[in-house]
């Protein structure tokens, strides 16, 4: 009666999707957060010289996506924790790594749902020159690697006291290389950094995706089940 890997992955993902859709206020909240960032920067931007403007807009974009990701990851297990469905999932014959992968995919889906429209708005309103495939690739890679990391940390801190304070303190230092390479890679796009470095930063970003995903995939089993 043992389910295959993909069957369980599908049922976790399908169920998680309807769980997220059943509770829209969670990710609508972070969309409103993104809008506030958009307006704040619009007030503060003024008329900067072109090179400076691009730098500030890049900072705005990655600052906002980092916090949207953090809000999403902090609440990713809320549906299960509410009525202790987590215990039932762990008492069921679930392959916990499929549960991890399903949650990471959901985190990526719902944060991308907020971050990419936000990017569209920035391009429209501020003339942010990010309408290139390369920048979309950078944004996608950083969302994926941060989601793989965020879901793992969110499960780890589930039973900790003062979780809302602890989670960002764990999340930020581990996210430094992702944010750094994302910002520097996008600077290469606009001539603020040597062109040759773009591929290096991209390889580092994708390396981070692989590392955080495999670590999460392997280590997730260790922190579930018999606690």
């Amino acid at each position, binding site marked *: 009666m043992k*389910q295959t890997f993909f069957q369980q992955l599908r049922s976790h993902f399908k169920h998680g999707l309807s769980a997220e859709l*059943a509770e829209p206020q969670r990710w609508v909240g972070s969309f409103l957060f993104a809008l506030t960032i958009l307006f704040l920067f619009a007030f503060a931007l003024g008329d900067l010289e072109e090179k400076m403007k691009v730098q500030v807009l890049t900072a705005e974009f990655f600052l906002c996506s980092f916090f949207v990701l953090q809000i999403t990851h902090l609440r990713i297990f809320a549906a*299960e924790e509410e*009525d202790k469905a987590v215990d039932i999932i*762990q008492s*069921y014959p679930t392959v916990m790594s499929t549960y991890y992968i399903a949650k990471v995919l959901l985190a990526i889906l719902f944060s991308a749902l907020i971050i990419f429209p936000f990017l569209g708005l920035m391009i429209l309103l501020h003339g942010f020159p990010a309408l290139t495939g390369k920048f979309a690739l950078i944004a996608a890679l950083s969302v994926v690697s941060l989601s793989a990391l965020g879901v793992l940390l969110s499960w780890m801190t589930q039973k900790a006291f003062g979780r809302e304070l602890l989670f960002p303190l764990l999340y930020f230092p581990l996210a430094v290389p992702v944010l750094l390479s994302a910002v520097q890679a996008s600077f290469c796009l606009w001539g603020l950094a040597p062109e040759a470095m773009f591929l290096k930063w991209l390889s580092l970003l994708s390396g981070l995706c692989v590392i955080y995903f495999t670590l999460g995939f392997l280590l997730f089993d260790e922190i579930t089940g018999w606690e």
Partner: protein
Amino acid sequence: MIENPMLKVDQLSFSFQHKQLFESLSFELKPGDILHLKGPNGCGKSTLLSILAGLRKPSSGQVRIKSSAANSIEARSFIEYLPPEKSGLFLKMTARQNLSFWSSLKDRQSATGEIDRCLRNWGLGSAFIKYFPTQRFSTGMKRRLALARISLSQSPCFLLDEPLNGLDEEGVHLFKNMLEQHRNNGGSAIVVSHESQILKTLFTDQLTLHL
């Protein structure tokens, strides 16, 4: 041929922050047995059930479910666990979504017809229940939905912690029928409950934990 026991516990002991809950506990559960777990509050009944459900690691001793360790995937496919206070539901989702998720996890993929019949059996068949999130259910109805999940799964071994809390007359009656049917089909169960008079007829043997 003596059938191999459904669940075998030997020399199990558990201490939580230096408080010894139980010491070298051994018992067996054969198919068709309904064990009543009794004992004063705080003697570790719920802890014992969570160990058997593979949620907690015992300090020492072994738990074998159909000859595989309690926290292995094979063992988990045989048991069905009901937590004491909370019923383990997705509160923002409807009763149908809850049941279809749990059945898909146990490779049963029960069709909506089967789910609806199960809901009707437990008196949860009305339209209101089909379309509204379970957070609007009363405790009794939540308990019935959790018991519906357990009966739908048809796993051989049930671990039920205070199944009757919140249930009304009809609920208790439905639960007794389910347990009886489960026993006749060769299933086994461990029940932690304080209303032992109501369920006395169903229990085959009992185990008392002391403080």
